[in-house]
């Protein structure tokens, strides 16, 4: 049987739950052995939507599910062209929709990166691109880069896979950069529950964000990563959202420091999705200074 999944007209973070619900049944398995993705209604897709779509297709392919694309548009609209420019169609069908697709300078296009190659990608692609967009030198990016490195370490240590998708998008009209990273591992709630016992995914994902809480998937893990991510992004005026299993975690800056909350979702996200939104005008970055001796 073929399950038809109509991509929503506006494929953004708000549509993730419904999209996932269409693809994955309540038992956590794909709804059919073949999934047809129908692009005919798609009018808008952002970086998160694109990352979720790639991650889901990867998850389906890993489960030997056949994926079919139905474009259904005689003339390609701007967002299919955008996806084509990001390399989406070439990645999955080996053929771009247009012969002369080109990556835009507002995009670091979606890429699946394994742990071993993530550092090289960070140094040779992410860092120079971000320096230009934020108009800062690379020393200002140390903490932000560390956040992303921590996520790649989490993918390696906590998930059953060693690779994740990353997509970075600059939105000039709203002066913001969004960084979306996703993997298809077992997810944060499942790891936390294994260590701390049964609880809702909502509680598990909130617990995981606190400093010192770790699933101990690796003996030397001390539970720094998600707290570090939350603090670093919020101190730069940004927002973090994490979808994993049935849990959604949101962290934003507020007058008292950080506003962290979590929600129980109706649909299970297959793996973990981290989305970082950075308003460019509020980006401060790291303090610059001479290298010094560490004082205990």
């Amino acid at each position, binding site marked *: 049987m073929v399950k038809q999944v109509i991509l929503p007209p506006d494929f953004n973070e708000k549509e993730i739950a419904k999209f996932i619900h269409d693809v994955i049944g309540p038992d956590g398995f794909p709804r059919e052995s073949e999934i047809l993705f129908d692009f005919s209604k798609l009018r808008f897709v952002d970086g998160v939507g694109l990352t979720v779509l790639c991650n889901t297709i990867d998850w389906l392919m890993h489960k030997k599910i056949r994926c079919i694309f139905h474009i259904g548009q005689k003339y390609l609209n701007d967002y299919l062209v955008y996806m084509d420019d990001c390399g989406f169609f070439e990645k999955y069908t080996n053929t771009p929709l247009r012969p002369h697709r080109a990556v835009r300078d507002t995009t670091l296009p979606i890429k699946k990166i394994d*742990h071993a190659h993530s*550092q090289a990608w960070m140094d040779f692609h992410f860092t120079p691109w971000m320096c230009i967009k934020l108009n800062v030198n*690379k*020393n200002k990016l*140390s*903490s932000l*880069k*560390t956040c992303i*490195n*921590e996520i790649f*370490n989490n993918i*390696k*240590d906590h998930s059953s896979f060693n690779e994740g998708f990353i997509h970075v998008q600059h939105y000039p009209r709203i002066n913001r950069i969004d960084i979306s990273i996703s993997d298809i591992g077992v997810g944060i709630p499942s790891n936390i529950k294994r260590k701390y016992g049964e609880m809702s995914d909502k509680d598990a994902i909130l617990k995981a964000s606190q*400093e*010192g809480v770790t699933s101990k998937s*690796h*003996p*030397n*893990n*001390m*539970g*720094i*990563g998600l707290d*570090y991510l939350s603090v670093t992004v919020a101190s730069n005026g940004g927002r973090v959202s994490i979808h994993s299993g049935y849990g959604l975690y949101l962290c934003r800056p507020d007058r008292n420091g950080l506003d962290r909350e979590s929600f129980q979702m109706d649909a299970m996200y297959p793996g973990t999705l981290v989305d970082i939104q950075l308003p460019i005008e509020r980006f401060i970055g*790291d*303090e*610059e*200074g001479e*290298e*010094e*001796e*560490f004082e*205990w």
Partner: protein
Amino acid sequence: MVINVLNHVPFCFSTEQGDTIRALVEEKLAYNEFVTVSFSGVSEVTSSFINSAFVALLNSYNIKFIKSHIRFVSVSKQVSDMLRRCFDNAQKEHLPPVVA
């Protein structure tokens, strides 16, 4: 004895890279020698690296011994913050039991 981390690992990123540095430090600590670890040229480190390279030493040595035998030099602000964060966090875990 000075260990310049970039002479031994390309990045301060992974648990495995941390393990490499810890092995070098442990070689010296085993003979009660003092170690200076230089982060010259390193702009950022992850918690996985710090935990694996240095915090894991708490399994063999107490914090007083570590503080008196290891110096960290040429550390950037981010490296310094991460060292402090990881050791503070680990010491909460290694607090001795309280007899009531």
